[in-house]
Each structure stands twice: as structure tokens, then as C-alpha cells.
């Protein structure tokens, strides 16, 4: 529970307590944030596919897979941008900000999961809208948390622009990978969505 509260604090951009600022503890928080995100994403996947048992079970691993792999694919680009830009921030702070954003975004998905499931069961049009809407909201919340968390951990007087470059690169990479991973994992929703066909479908 302590770790969960600490992760929530980190996601909110609060300063990391002194006892949690060691390197191993920070890495442990990064790992915990990712593992917790998998559980949250699985809960939302279950709700989004709740119209059929097969889709619901498949979503239990498909949605976490899409989110985790998009993080894994985006992280190297973000770290390279951090190194090359000379951003005045610790690498683990950047990693904590990123995983804090993912944690916050997937937490939004998890708390909206009951609503998504309820509307999928009871409405023909509101369910899909709510499903896609919850994804958009989670992306916005995750982005805001990542940016805010990174800026708040900057040393006083450090230029914000240099710190935002690795953030922007990481977010861009994650969005691009999310788009194609979601297409590979489709169907996640019972309906065909604009994102089911990936970039080819969007560009058509």
C-alpha cells in the first residue's frame, strides 16, 4: 500500500520522500508502476470486451501488451533524447515521470472500466463512444502527469525547454507505437474503429 501511495504521489508530481530517493528504490517504483499499469489496463480491457467472453479474455492480455510494449519501444528514444539534449534532470526522474504518467493514465482507464462495461451492456452507441473517450482521456491525463512530474523535478532555475524535449520525443514515440500495436492487437473493441487498421487505415 505504501508503494501504491508513493506512486500516486509521484504521478501527482509531489516531491519524492527522502527514504524513496535511492537509486534501487526509484527503479523499484518504476517497475511497480509498470506492473500496476498492466493490471489497470487488463481491467479496462475486460470491460471493453465485455460483450463477448472470448474478446474479454483476449483483452486481458492484449490491452496490457499494447501499453507495455509501447512504453518499452518509446523509452530508448526518450533516453537518447535526454542524453543528447543534456536535459538538466536525472535519468531516474525522467523514468519515474514517464512511468508515473503511464500509471496515472491506466488508473483512469481502470476507474472508468465499470462505466465502460455498463454502457457496453446497455447501449448500442454509448458503449463504443465511452470506450474510445476513456482512451483519449487516459492519454491526456497520462501526458499531463508526465509533463508536470518532469517539470516539478527540475532543479530550481533549470531551463524547462531542454527537459521537455525528451518528454516530447517519448510521447511521440509512444503514440506512434500505440497506433500500430493497437492495429496488430485488433479487435479490442467489438466494433471496427478508426484505429483498427493502423496508420494505413487512418491515411486512407
Amino acid at each position, binding site marked *: 500500500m505504501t508503494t501504491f501511495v508513493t506512486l500516486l504521489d509521484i504521478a501527482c508530481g509531489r516531491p519524492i520522500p527522502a527514504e524513496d530517493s535511492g537509486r534501487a528504490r526509484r527503479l523499484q517504483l518504476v517497475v*511497480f508502476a509498470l506492473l500496476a499499469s498492466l493490471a489497470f489496463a487488463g481491467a479496462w480491457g475486460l470491460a471493453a470486451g465485455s460483450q463477448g467472453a472470448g474478446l474479454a479474455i483476449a483483452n486481458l492480455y492484449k490491452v496490457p501488451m499494447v501499453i507495455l510494449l509501447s512504453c*518499452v519501444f518509446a523509452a530508448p528514444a526518450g533516453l537518447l533524447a535526454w542524453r543528447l539534449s543534456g536535459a538538466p534532470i536525472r535519468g531516474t526522474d525522467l523514468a519515474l515521470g514517464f512511468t508515473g504518467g503511464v500509471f496515472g493514465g491506466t488508473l483512469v482507464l481502470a476507474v472508468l472500466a465499470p462505466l465502460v462495461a455498463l454502457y457496453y451492456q446497455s447501449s448500442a452507441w454509448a458503449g463504443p463512444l465511452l470506450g474510445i473517450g476513456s482512451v483519449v482521456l487516459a492519454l491526456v491525463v497520462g501526458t499531463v502527469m508526465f509533463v508536470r512530474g518532469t517539470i516539478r523535478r527540475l532543479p530550481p532555475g533549470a531551463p524547462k525547454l531542454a527537459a521537455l524535449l525528451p518528454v516530447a520525443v517519448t510521447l511521440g514515440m509512444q503514440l506512434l507505437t500505440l497506433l500500430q500495436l493497437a492495429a496488430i492487437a485488433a479487435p479490442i473493441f467489438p466494433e471496427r474503429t478508426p484505429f483498427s487498421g493502423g496508420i494505413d487505415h487512418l491515411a486512407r
Partner: protein
Amino acid sequence: MTTPTTAPVTAPLLHIPTIRLATHLRRLGAAALVVASVLAAPEPARAGGGQTAGEDACAPDADSLPLAGAHFAPRRVDGGLAWDARFVVTSDAPSSFRGGALRFAAPLPAGEELVATQGLDAIVEAGRVAGLCVGEGALQGRTVSASFFQPLSGEGAIALGAPIATGRTVQIVDTSVGDARLELTDAPLLEKHVGFVAPRGIGPGAREEARRLTGVREHVSASPIYLRGEDARGGLTVRLADPRARDHTSAIAVGVAFAAVVGGLVLAARRLRRAASVERADALLASEIEAAAKGSRG
């Protein structure tokens, strides 16, 4: 209607039935002569069209269709592919066109046939469609439209069933078939570029001109084939690539990667547990010592 000389004017009422009978007989005779002449004429190798393309359309001395561009779009139908072909003639052709022949660069694959179209007949050679007899009536504005049915059986490489016309006119073959896509398997003359396939000799200007003539819009994801008749002389083979099958393979790879990452995370969490708890305990102890030192000073 009737010939006045065949009936005396003096007895009109009595002779009217006789006159009508003679007229009908004459018409029947003329019709029989026409049928006999058609039956007796040498049979050209034509097939398919619901109506003949015109008497001289495919005569040996007939003009060939003055082609400016062509566009071929495949679509899935029961049992195979339907090819919707649009041949665009040169701007001066419609005023002088009286029918002509359109030869294909290579005979269409065995079993492919012309869907019956008014004013069009298939030229069949050795059992395969090798061209079209285009009647005057088949030209709509500057366009001749035709549809072909290519039967498909099973998976694997198939012959490209687009009726590519012979000559140097740049023609466009769409490769999207619903969600699936036609991919060239063996075409050394054609180079794959981003968004299109074309031989080296067809530049951006020629592609743009071909699109303008045929009214084809450019799409990033369409990946059409631009080619001339000479590029398809030996026939081309394609494979119908289903993106779902490709996605299935990708999904397996992604699933394996996912399992590996999750395993790595769990392993990392276990390894970090001890080090993190030691770090945390040290930090707590340090803060307690610091607090105690502050208290003793105070």
C-alpha cells in the same frame, strides 16, 4: 408501305389482303437472306459480349484503339476477382472513332473472361482472352469500361488478371482488394517505391499524367502499380496478401515480446526488493539519527 404497281387501282378492296401477304413474304425473304449471310460468314474468334462490337471493329485492317491511359481496379467477388477496367482514349479519338481493336500485352490468365458488356467482344486466342473488339457504342466520352472475372482457387501466387493494354501508354493497376492487397512476386522490371510500384522508365510526370487522365486520386496507402504494356509482356504474378494473416504473425511475435518484458519486470522487481528495502531502511535510519541529533542539540 405497299408497292402501288403490284395491285390494280380498279379493284382496291378485293386485292388488299393479297398485297399485304406479298409484302410480308418479301420481308421474310430479306430477313432470311441476312441471317443466311451472317451464318455463312467466317466466324471471328469472339466471345463474351452481349452485343457485337460492330462489323469492322476487329477486322484485320481495323484501327487499334488510340489509348491515352488505363486504370484497373480489382475487387473480391464470389469465387475470384473482378477487374473493373477503364481505358481512356486520346482526346481526338471520340470524333473519328468507328470501332477498333485493343490488344493486351499478354493474354489474360486461363479461365478469366469478359463480363458481357454492350459494344465489347473478347478476342480469344488459344482459349485465352487476348484483346477486345471495341464497338463505336462502347466509347462513353473518352472512356471504354469493361469488367473481367478472374477465377481464384486456393492460396499462393496467381497471374495478374488486369487487362493491361499493349504499347507504351502508362497504365495504373490498383492493388487494394478490400482489406487485402496484391503484391507482385516476380517482376524484375518493376521497382517497389514508397506508395507505388513502377519501372525505372516511368517518372513522376508520367505517373501524374496517368492519374490525371484516368481520374485516379493518389493515396499514401494505395500503392498502385504504374506500368506500360511492354513491362507486362511476359505476364506478371502476384500474391493476394491478407493483412489479417500478417497481423496474426505479428501478434504472435508481439505476444512473445510481451511475455519476455513482463518476465523481465517481475525478475527486476524481485532483485530490486532487497536492495530497495536496504536503501529505504538506511535512509529512514539516517533521518532518525539526524532528528535525534537535532533534538539533542536543542
